């Protein structure tokens, strides 16, 4: 066991993947000498050379388009998108080509491309640097979408993503890059598959579902709720598509109450899908309507306002109170329409 920051854990996972499979190549903007703007690829070019850790021309569509060709040729490209907001020039290649290739070719062509995306806010950055675009990709059949929340998962899930024969969007919680955690570097095969959700805090009163950067906040919220005599079960989804609904449903059958929280906007976000699916599956068990704590349906705001956009511990607890029928911010609220 070693203590690693989340970014160093991804770095270690990438290193391992480069070592075990010579077909793994990394591509991205500034990932070579600089080691990426978050230093996630620090030192890898020095050790594996510029042909396996490639400083690409500044073109996201170019990177993902050529990744497809490389994959056709038997490579496993791992493409770094510098920030969430810069993935959109590549959207066309991801949606119209990468996601559909396996189905179009009736399984003949596999595109084991991993797309690493630092995502989410809370770092006081300028526009296009704090977004959560995961729902666009989760909405598209043919893509796996995952997000890690801690160092151990970062280390193992990046390797599982690269080893997967499917294209994987790998969302990295950028504001947690510097959070430290224990990493067992030997036992990645023993680690739970990236497809499985994990109960990261057991509880009996309310199920709180989240992923990526908010897992830590949700765990803190559960601790705070416990002080108040409320037992919150926290689930880290890990895989956003497909979603491990069995784990969520099992928890909701136990607690009867569901809160979903994510930084992404609410409308048609992961929360909407989870609320609908769990309501379909567990209607008879629910004691209250599922609640969502999400970013608002506005463009991600300027840095000085991001605290008002981002879900936080208090907003999570407020929703917990709501599903428990306790006094909450909407108790006296009424809206004209």
């Amino acid at each position, binding site marked *: 066991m070693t203590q690693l920051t989340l970014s160093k854990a991804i770095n270690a996972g990438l290193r391992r993947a480069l070592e075990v499979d010579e077909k793994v190549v990394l591509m991205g903007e500034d990932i070579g000498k600089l080691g990426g703007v978050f230093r996630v690829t620090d030192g890898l070019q020095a050790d594996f050379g510029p042909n396996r850790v490639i400083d690409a021309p500044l073109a996201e569509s170019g990177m993902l388009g050529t990744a497809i060709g490389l994959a056709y040729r038997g490579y496993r490209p791992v493409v770094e998108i510098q920030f969430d907001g810069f993935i*959109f020039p590549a959207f066309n290649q991801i949606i119209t080509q990468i996601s559909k290739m396996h189905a179009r070719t009736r399984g003949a062509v596999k595109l084991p491309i991993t797309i690493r995306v630092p995502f989410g806010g809370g770092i006081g*950055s300028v526009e296009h640097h704090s977004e959560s675009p995961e729902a666009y990709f989760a909405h598209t059949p043919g893509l796996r979408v995952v997000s890690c929340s801690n160092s151990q998962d970062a280390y193992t899930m990046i390797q599982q993503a690269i080893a997967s024969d499917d294209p994987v969007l790998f969302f990295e919680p950028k504001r947690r890059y510097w959070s430290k955690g224990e990493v067992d570097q030997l036992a990645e095969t023993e680690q739970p598959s990236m497809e499985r959700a994990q109960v990261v805090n057991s509880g009996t009163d309310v199920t709180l579902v989240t992923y990526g950067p908010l897992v830590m906040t949700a765990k803190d919220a559960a601790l705070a709720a416990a002080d108040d005599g409320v037992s919150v079960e926290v689930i880290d989804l890990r895989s956003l598509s497909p979603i491990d609904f069995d784990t969520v449903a099992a928890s909701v059958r136990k607690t009867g109450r569901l809160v979903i929280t994510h930084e992404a906007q609410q409308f048609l976000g992961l929360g909407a899908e989870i609320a609908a699916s769990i309501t379909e599956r567990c209607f008879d068990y629910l004691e209250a309507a599922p609640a969502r704590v999400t970013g608002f349906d506005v463009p991600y705001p300027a840095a*000085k306002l991001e605290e008002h956009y981002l879900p936080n511990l208090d*907003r999570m607890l407020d929703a917990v109170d709501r599903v428990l029928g306790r006094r909450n911010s909407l108790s006296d609220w009424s809206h004209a*329409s």
Partner: protein
Amino acid sequence: MSTIQPETSLSNHLHDERAIPTEPMVDGTSVPPGEASADFLQLLTPDGHRTPNADYDPWVADVDVASLVRLYEDHVVVRRIDTEAMHLQRQGQLGLWAPLLGQEAAQIGSARSLRSDDFVFSSYRENAVAYCRGVDFTDLMRVWRGNSHSGWDPYEINMAIPSVIIGTQALHATGYAMGCQFDGGDQVAIAYFGDGATSQGDISEAMVFAARFQAPVVFFCQNNQWAISEPVERQARIAIANRAPGFGIPSIRVDGNDVLAVMAVTRRAIERARTGGGPTFIEAVTYRMGPHTTSDDPTRYRNKEELDEWSVKDPIKRLEAHLSSMGALTDEVRAEVQAKADSVAAEVRAGTLGLTDPESLSIFDHVLSTESSWLERQKSQYSAYLDMFEGGAR
């Protein structure tokens, strides 16, 4: 400008730039993309000598000593603002800053060639262009402080808000220029972008549209040798200016640290666009002397020798040397320019520190042109949430 006549029949000869032997067009595949000494137009040498050029001298014939002093003042002022902004960022007063240090001549020479009703589409580093357009720098700082996503009303100064997504603005400029053409206006649009940006599909697509419509647009590429940590050689094998002729767009490579040469080529390109001659691509060869932004650590990827090499070509030193050689850089001029720079910097600092934090519920504003009940509901609920906190969390 009015004394300069547009050249005749340029519009009928898309490739005639290649035919003019004295034009320092990039020709063939021999010039590496980072090459900064050969094959570009230079009117002022690094030590301030004026080199005559029959083709381009007429384009700056009206730039007299007084104009040069004004240009010099622009340079000193924007560099002073840049320094102040770096300090403000280090002091925690700005979230981020993208310094333009070293690129003053490219930006000032081009921006001062525009008419006030021409329209600018820029990237994030064009602070000197913004200065020349008359931006109130407090508005600009509003963005870098994290108070808002835009600093000014584009229609007030005919400059769009900067585009952070690399390359996008070249298409916007082209479309604006198409609009000028469609409605018969004689305005032109100019797109500023970097060497790295030229790898984006949007830049190529902009050239396709500009050529197809012969749109009155000027593509102004500041090749500052770096895209964050990637040298221009990662983007291109030969000089960037060489790409445009393939699209049917004449191009020119210019010493981007020579304000006079930049002015000459930009004026010529603008005049061509204004008189129906279509687009021009300008590659201004310059150097980013500072970090990419205040978040960057350039010591990880480039060495001091390179910086030393480029500091010899500094745009301000060169202008000072030139003015001195004409006896125009008196102590009095120096003092006046410095005083102006200091007072602008003080204004910028005071303006920045005086910015009030934005109102919390303003995140719900302007999402659509009319209010939606869906969003009103969210806003109202969030307002109720904020009311729970004593003293108000807003």
